[in-house]
């Protein structure tokens, strides 16, 4: 692939790498906190960092909208959610931003970042993202809506309905499938009869693009193209980023039941951090020393975040009944 004109600059790639290092460090920490009994549930982003961060960098945080999935820690960090905010979520503490610790970590909404992830229910974000794009276009905004989902989610009826509607109305949506080959334990060949989710795009009148999701630059380019397509009124794109999930589905899962060690070993070879690191070292944008520093800085930030969250208290019961309806104490104002 030609990374010339539309590709990210060395500086951009370095910033992506920095975010990937931060995400990985934070992700490893919350997994550890789970094993210590401190974080109730973790769905790790490991292996997915490049595609999440590469796609964010191709968009316009601040005006574009991001309908995230539960595995999208790197999207959130890249958009500017702080590790401290993330950690408050994993420990379910007071001050958690997206749901007031009413939901699983990373669920709820972060309007300032353009983030919506209402629920754990796979696939529900797809029609919502389409509706959001419809709304933006009605107001004449040039917003692009990106919606992240997994290979498993591609089977849900609402995914079909959402793509069909977006195709009919040529809406500015990027359907971004993070295909890691598994839906919990269900492998690709039991999820679909074809190699690629992208093969469905044509039936909705939109392009379907398969991209190496472990290559941040490639994802950046594919997303840039989809975004300019969307912004110029040419409608939606389905991007399928091929990634690997080395860890169990979540901290509740035991993947030894359905994956052998060899397969996981092979998957680890496609570690997006290693791939980008080598490239940056090769092109001289990164030095071994600078890399060390990035990791040290990430560890420091994550340590701080952990302390912040561990010393925070749980939410009180005062607000328990708030926000059932708008006309109650604390109800959100009309938009």
């Amino acid at each position, binding site marked *: 692939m030609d990374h010339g004109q539309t590709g990210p600059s060395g500086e951009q790639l370095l910033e992506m790498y920095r975010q990937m290092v931060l995400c990985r460090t934070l992700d490893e920490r919350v997994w550890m906190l789970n094993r210590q009994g401190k974080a109730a549930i973790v769905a790790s982003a490991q292996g997915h960092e490049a595609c999440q961060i590469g796609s964010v960098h191709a968009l316009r945080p601040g005006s574009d*909208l991001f309908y995230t999935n539960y595995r999208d820690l790197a999207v959130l960090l890249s958009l500017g959610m702080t590790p401290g905010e993330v950690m408050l979520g994993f420990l379910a503490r007071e001050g958690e931003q*997206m*749901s*007031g610790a*009413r*939901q699983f970590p990373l*669920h*709820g*909404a*972060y*309007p300032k970042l353009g983030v*919506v992830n*209402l*629920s754990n*229910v796979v696939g*529900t974000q*797809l*029609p*919502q*993202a*389409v*509706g*959001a*794009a*419809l*709304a*933006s276009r*009605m*107001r004449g905004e040039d917003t692009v809506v990106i919606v992240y989902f997994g290979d498993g989610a591609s089977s849900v*009826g*609402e995914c079909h*309905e*959402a793509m*069909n*509607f977006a195709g*009919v109305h040529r809406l500015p949506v990027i359907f971004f499938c993070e295909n890691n080959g598994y839906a919990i334990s269900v492998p690709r060949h039991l999820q679909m009869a074809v190699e690629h989710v992208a093969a469905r795009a044509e039936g909705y009148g939109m392009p379907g693009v398969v991209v190496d999701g472990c290559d941040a630059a490639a994802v950046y380019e594919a997303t840039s193209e989809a975004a300019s397509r969307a912004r110029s009124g040419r409608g939606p794109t389905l991007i399928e980023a091929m990634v690997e999930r080395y860890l169990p589905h979540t901290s509740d899962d035991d993947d030894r039941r359905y994956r052998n060690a060899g397969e996981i070993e092979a998957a680890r070879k496609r570690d997006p951090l290693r791939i980008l690191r080598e490239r940056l070292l090769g092109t001289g944008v990164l030095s071994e020393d600078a890399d060390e520093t990035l990791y040290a800085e990430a560890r420091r930030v994550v340590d701080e975040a952990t302390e912040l969250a561990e010393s925070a208290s749980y939410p009180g019961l005062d*607000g328990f009944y*708030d*926000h*059932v*309806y*708008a*006309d109650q104490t*604390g*109800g*959100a*104002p*009309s*938009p």
Partner: protein
Amino acid sequence: MIEAVRDAIREELARDERVFVLGEDVGRRGGVFLATDGFIEEFGENRIIDTPLAEASIAGIALGAALNGMRPIAEIQFADFIWPTFNQLLGEAAKARYGSNGKVSAPLVARTPYGGGVRGGLYHSQNVEAFFAHSPGLKVVAPATPYDAKGLLKSAVRDDDPVVFLEHKRTYRLVRGQVPDEEYTVPIGEAEVKIEGSHVSVITYGLMVHHCAEAARNLAQDDISVELVDLRTLAPMDRATVIDSVKKTGKALVVHEDTRTGGLGGEVAAVIAEEAFDHLDGPVVRLAGPDVPAMPFSPPLEAEFMLNTEKISAAIRRLASY
């Protein structure tokens, strides 16, 4: 009645640019019941959207647009086809505000014609109110008169929370009534005593309001004085009006067309049995549709399912003489 619905939507479309309509056949067809007749000509196809045949996404797209600052009115062509919206309406919309700790609002309206007595058979007659009324975060409205329909629908569009708006399709042409020319709304969450009385409280909503009113008028001739409470909003329910009425009369009959077991009447009866127990002079009686899967098509079978003035009068009589 259908005119009241149509006028409410049209006025809200004209009033607020954020309002738009989506659903099957709402465009050139004007809706299968003509609730949006002429709208596409008046407001254009950007605001009156004929969707593909896909109810789950009609709800999901409406929700997404509502979260992003619009005020969609989604039409589900018949309530019998509303199940696929549950994932978005009960699962997502109802929980959006609570689940985001108040960060987002989902001000959408999902309108749907429901109910039987129109030769609709099993799949064009169903009642679905009890499902929505068991979902904190949703509001559920079921008006009986044109006045209430127009005023409540306008309130629903302006409400900052998701509202399921249930229109009994038998009332569309059957029920006529005065609607003022000037702008008005009817507040969501308030029941109305449609007829005052002293012997028996009858609590109901929708089409049954009319059958119960007729029964009340007939029974007045036999000196049975019925107080008729029209719930109008099913959730959140106006328990105070119900309780006040029962405290006055001491007897309560709860009436609905929907099948009996697990229906909304259970909730009403339970509220009465708990909060007005000391005032009760007789059992809390429910009169409701029979516990069969849905309303059959053939005329005598349909008639057997439906409640009517005679069945209601008989039940009131029995309770009055308890």
